[in-house]
Each structure stands twice: as structure tokens, then as C-alpha cells.
């Protein structure tokens, strides 16, 4: 029953004053029998009133605004979380029976959302890979682990190589990415064979050997296994996500779960720095490790447009686009 102390700081700095910012944060760990939140301190610049609600996927979302001019926004989330290991699937049902069960979930809520795969160009190349990896006698559980290994082995983990706006096509071409890309790829493969797959955002808590994905928010996938439920699989580390993974949110993809997103008014560029540090309860927090700049991390805010004409044309076009 490990207990983790997590500090997650998101810092936006603007090179000019901005105002009227509105933000959504998904930084509240999921609470269930495998995960308890003992303490959660959330400190935000300007002490705004944070309203929370539960979204369609069951995630707790906080929202707040800041209308005053400001040139900095810091969201400091400090957590004390307690996790419990979950037994792995027994996997003693016949494979055919399990595939049948999955087949029958195709048009059932919520699975329907987690089976739909958007089109991307690499799909035609990925299809034979998937067919090749999967053997008919394999259970969904086995298949999921094989796919996880495939992603782990065939894609290179390079910090900062992609951003949240990088498409699956690009990732498929460069055969490299960060944790969210690994998660997305695994989800595509699972969905192709009819295993419902969802995206998970959260934190990874390091063991002695160190793990990929430390120092920032982490992401992995969950596959729906008949007779078991959602099984966390971390293709970045090629392991089952269990008591070392702290879950914040689930969804169809990254954008359903993005930990912090916001928009503001003002013609300023912004820099985003995120740091995540995790320690065991009896130890002090380790030093902050990584500072990411805006180019490598969620760029959800409108960057200043320096071309006023282009901006004007965009406004005209949007006004005309409204239907009915």
C-alpha cells in the first residue's frame, strides 16, 4: 500500500499582460478502491474560486476564471495519494468466449466511444501489423500485452519530440514520441481488433530503477478485458499500470483528459513550464527535475497573432461559417 507525495506545478508566463482568462483543470485523482486521496492542496495565482463538476467520462474537472490583467498563472497541486495493487486478470475464460463478449459491446455505452478509431494515414500499414501480432488463440489480455510490447519496441521514446498537436500520421512516420503518443498508438491497435481502449492521464511514481515519464504528467492506456474490467497498460514502460501509476482522468484521447487548459485575451506569447515531482511519504520530495518549454508541452492557449490582417480575415470567415 504505497503512499505518494506528488507536487505538480504548471506555470504560464506571458510576455505582456493578458486578461479574461478561463481555465479547466483535471488534476483531481480518481477515487476508487485502488486509489485514495489523503490530502490535496491546490494553490492558484489570485486564489480564484474553483468550481468542480464531473464530466461525461466521470472525471472531476475544475474551472476558474481571472478577468484581471495578469502576466503569470501558476497552478500548484500537492497531493498525498495512497494506492493499492490490483490483482492481474486470471484470464481463464476461453479466448473465443472473451472475443464474443467484446463483440457484443460494440454498440453499448460507454464502450462505443472507446472503440471508434479516427482515420489516419498509417492505418493501412498498421492493419497488417495488428493481424500479424494477433493469434486467434490469444485472449484479449494476451493480445493487449503483445501490442504493448510492439509499441514499446518499435517506437523510440524521445522527450520533446512531439507536442500535443502532433498527429498520429507524423508519429507513425518518425516512429518516435512521448508517453501520450505511445498511449495513442496502443489505443489504435487495441481498437482495431475490437478491444475497447481508453486514454489515461496521471502520474508515474518511480521505483528504484527509474521510469520513463517522470518529471511530467504521464499517460498510458486502459484496455477492457472481459471478466476483469479496465486494465491499465503502460506502453512507454512496457508494463501493467498498477500501484505505481496514479490516475487523474480517463477519456477517448488526450484532449478529453488534458490536465490544464485555458484561453485568455491579449496579444502576448506565453511560456509554459511544468514540473512534477514524486516522493514516498517518508522521504522528502526530490528536487524538481525537468522544465519544459511551451514548444514541447500542451499548447492549448491562443498564441498572439502578429498578422492583424490574417486575424481579420479569420474573423470574417468564422462569422460567415455560422449555419442555419
Amino acid at each position: 500500500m504505497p503512499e505518494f507525495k506528488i507536487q505538480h506545478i504548471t506555470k504560464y508566463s506571458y510576455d505582456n499582460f493578458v486578461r479574461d482568462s478561463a481555465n479547466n483543470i483535471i488534476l483531481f485523482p480518481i477515487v476508487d478502491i485502488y486509489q485514495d486521496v489523503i490530502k490535496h492542496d491546490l494553490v492558484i495565482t489570485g486564489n480564484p474560486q474553483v468550481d468542480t463538476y464531473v464530466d461525461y467520462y466521470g472525471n472531476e474537472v475544475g474551472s476558474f476564471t481571472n478577468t484581471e490583467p495578469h502576466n503569470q498563472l501558476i497552478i500548484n497541486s500537492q497531493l498525498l495519494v495512497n494506492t493499492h495493487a490490483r490483482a492481474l486478470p486470471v484470464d481463464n475464460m476461453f479466448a473465443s468466449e472473451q472475443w464474443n463478449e467484446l463483440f457484443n459491446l460494440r454498440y453499448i455505452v460507454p464502450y462505443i466511444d472507446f472503440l471508434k478509431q479516427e482515420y489516419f494515414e498509417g492505418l493501412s500499414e498498421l492493419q497488417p501489423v495488428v493481424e500479424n501480432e494477433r493469434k486467434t488463440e490469444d485472449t484479449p489480455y494476451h493480445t493487449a500485452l503483445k501490442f504493448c510490447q510492439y509499441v514499446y519496441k518499435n517506437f523510440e521514446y524521445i522527450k520533446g519530440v512531439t507536442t500535443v498537436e502532433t498527429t498520429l500520421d507524423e508519429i507513425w512516420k518518425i516512429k518516435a514520441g512521448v508517453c501520450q503518443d505511445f498511449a495513442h498508438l496502443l489505443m489504435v491497435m487495441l481498437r482495431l481488433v475490437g478491444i475497447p481502449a481508453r486514454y489515461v492521464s496521471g502520474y508515474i511514481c518511480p521505483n528504484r530503477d527509474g521510469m520513463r515519464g517522470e518529471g511530467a504528467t504521464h499517460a498510458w492506456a486502459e484496455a477492457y478485458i472481459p471478466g476483469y474490467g479496465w486494465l491499465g497498460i503502460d506502453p512507454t514502460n512496457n508494463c501493467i499500470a498498477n500501484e505505481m501509476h496514479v490516475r487523474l482522468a480517463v477519456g477517448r484521447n488526450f484532449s478529453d483528459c488534458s490536465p490544464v487548459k485555458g484561453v485568455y485575451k491579449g496579444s502576448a506569447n506565453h511560456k509554459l513550464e511544468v514540473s512534477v515531482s514524486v516522493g514516498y511519504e517518508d522521504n522528502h520530495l526530490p528536487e524538481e527535475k525537468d522544465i519544459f518549454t511551451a514548444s514541447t508541452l500542451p499548447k492549448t492557449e491562443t498564441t498572439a497573432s502578429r498578422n492583424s490582417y490574417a486575424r481579420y480575415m479569420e474573423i470574417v470567415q468564422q462569422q460567415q461559417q455560422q449555419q442555419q
Partner: protein
Amino acid sequence: MYQSQHFEKYNLINGVWDEMYSENSIVRHHYKKVIEYLAQESPDDLGKKEELAKNLFMTQGITFTVYNSGEGIEKIFPFDIIPRVITSDEWCIIEKGIKQRLTALNLFLKDIYHNQFIVKDGIVPIDIIYSCPHFLREMYQLNVPYDIYVHIAGIDLIRDHDGTFYVLEDNLRTPSGVSYMLENREITKRLFPDLLPNCGVRSVTEYPSILYKNLLSLSPRQISNPTIVLLSPGIYNSAYFEHTTLARLMGVELVEGRDLVVNNHKVYMKTTTGLQQVDVIYRRVDDEFLDPLVFNPNSVLGVAGLMGAYRKGNVAIVNAVGNGVADDKATYIYVPDMIKYYLNEEPLLKNVPTHRLSNKDERDHVFKNINTMVVKKTNESGGYGMLMGHAATEEEIEKYKLEILKDPRNFIAQPTISLSAAPCYIGGALQPRRIDLRPYALCGPDGIEIVPGGLTRVALKEGSLVVNSSQGGGSKDTWVLA
């Protein structure tokens, strides 16, 4: 009987319901007074009236922009001076039918965003809902005042060759055109001042006051003078004239997204004397652009944080967000089933038979008979992206087929319905042109009200079946007789 030269060129179109003449070229009873009046007028008089109407439209700035027409944004909405007449019996069917339909559609939206009974019971296929881009998961379990989602509906009706009314489509998001209904009547009053009372034409002018009353009743704050605003995309929108007209007629503020700001889950309007809290927003901006925080982050038309205020119940939004799942053309197919399911009633208004192209058998059938079909995109409106099978070239058809095969879910097909014809004053004589009818229904806490009338749209080109204003169609005044 009518020797006037206006009627010489009026040739009935074969196999088409004519609003004025019955099959034996006998003038229908409800058109008699209009026709008698017109017969007395010299062609010169009618020509003058037409000229007057044009001038009035221009000087009053009653415009509708047709994008890419190269005529700038101030293009007048073509108006035909001859009114379209509807009997009180016909109106009775329309009114009852629309009320029934709208009641079911509101129940459907509430259900889809809460318990989803209709999906669980297999009445509406779940994949239609979950593959619809306008099914907004952000609306799930969000409660709206009085469970009303569709406050304003524009239901498009057409008449087949035997005169039966059919619903062609439901417009439940931000239906436009009602200001033209009001303006057409104002102009007609000046063109034919005596004729309206003589014929016993029912009034439509109550529309803005009914809408205003409904907007007031939605205010979350129980105060005597809540702030109501009309949120417009801006001057480049084709219906900007309508936005200004409705705001003026109701006496509410006309705002754009940049005039509003959200603070602590409340919406405020920026005024010269500071921020003023907004209670009700009648928005004419699409869902996708409404809140850049939740929907399209590049939107400059919306208000960041608006959905948060909406969810907290601090502001009412008209129409509700997420209605597109109900007026999607694939959902349309199931509206008669919804009426039976929720109301336990037989639908009073018929649907046009519609094929889902995601179903292979139906798709094959449509491809084989494409010359008699109209193919439409499921979530477009305004007549954009349509294929009229009988008028398209081989090449156009082949190109369109490829597009369909890429994403069949996004297309439906309907047999070409002939649309009824009504007399229009064109080139100095009366000529039949195809028309449809869009009545406007208003749903408030007291129930559904429909002003007797609507927008009759006309396909001005001879032989054309496309009445959409955005495709160069015109309109005429619509008279419902008492």
C-alpha cells in the same frame, strides 16, 4: 373567368400540386379574393408595386448575404409580391403537427443527455447518436431551465403532388429567417393595404413579443429586469440583418462575443458603466464557436468559460447547446418513432422517406436510382453540399459517390419530392414557381406557440427545386386565413 393578361403565361406544371389552381384550372376558393384583386390591376400597377417592394427592401436594409456571390454583404433578399395563401384547415394540421413534433424532439434531447432510454430500448440506433458530431458530451447531465432545449424551431414543410404536407427537415439549432417573415408582412401591408383585412389574414407581428416573454421567463435570477442579450457572430454573417431586427423589436442588447466576459461562472456584458450581469443569451453563434475553452479553441466569436456558467445555471442559453444531435438528417429518420415512443401518438406530419447511406443495401439502392434522388449531408444546412440527382452531370455524380463512400454516415438520400408551386410575379406575368414553408415555433414554460404564418421560400429559377436563401432563393409573404 380571368381574362387579365397576368394569367396568360400561367401553365400548370404536370404532376405538381398548384397552390392556386386545382387540376381543372379552377382557382381554389382561398385564392379567389387575391386573384380577383390582381385581375383588376393593370400590369403597370403590379410592376410599380414590385418596384416599390424592391426599393423598400433596399432602403430598409433588409439584406441576406449570399457568400461568394460577389455582390458584397448588402444583397437584398429577393421578394415576390404575390402572397402565398394557406387555409385555416391546412394551418390547423400544420400547427398541431409541429407542436407534436417539437414536444417529442424536446423530450428526445432531454433523454439523450440524461438517461438515454430511447437508445436503450433500441428505438433510435445508438451509433447514429454517438457518431453525430453534434452530440456534445459536454451537455451530458447538464440541466437546462424547464427541460426546454429547442426554444425556437424552424420546421421546413413541403407539399407533395397530392397536396400532403411533409416535414423536409427540422432546424433546431439557430434557425434563421423569421425577420423576413415579419418584414415581408410589413411590405405587403404597404403594397396591398385593403386586401389583408378583406381576406381575413391572421397577424404574425406578435412573434417578437412571444419570444421576449419566453426569454424573460428563463432568467435564472428572480429579478424584475433581467438582462437579455442577442449574441451575433457579427456583420459578416448572412443573417446579421435579422440579428439587428430581432434585437430592436424585442428591445434587447445586440452583442458580440468580445462584449461578454465570464467571471466566477457568471456572464457579464461590458458597458460604459462597468460590467452588467447577463441572464439570458439568445445566441446566433454555432455550438462549436460558443466557448473556446470547451469547443473550438480558435473561435473568436464565443465567450471563454460560458459553458461553466451555463452548467452552474447562472445563465440561460437559447437555443440550448447540443441540439444538433436532434436535427441531424440521420436522426430525422427516427422522429416519427420518437413521437410514438414519448407521446404514444401517431405522427400528424409525415417524414419524407429517407435512406441512410451507411446501410449498404440502402446505399446500393440509392446509387442505382440516383437520378431520382436528392443526396444531402447529414449535418449541413442551407442547401450546401447537396446533390440533385435529376440535374447533376455524370461526372458530378461519380465525384459525389466517391465522397459518400469515404464517410457514408454523413449522407442521406431522399426521393426527389416535387414541391408545390405557387404563382409568382415574374417578368410582368404570373408564373408558377416551387415553394416550401418554414413556420417558426416558440417553446416556453407555457407551451408551444406558433404565429400563423412563416417564411415561404421560392425557387425563383424556372424548374428549380432549390429554395434555400443561401442558394439564391427568394421569399414571399405567407397568409394564413382566419
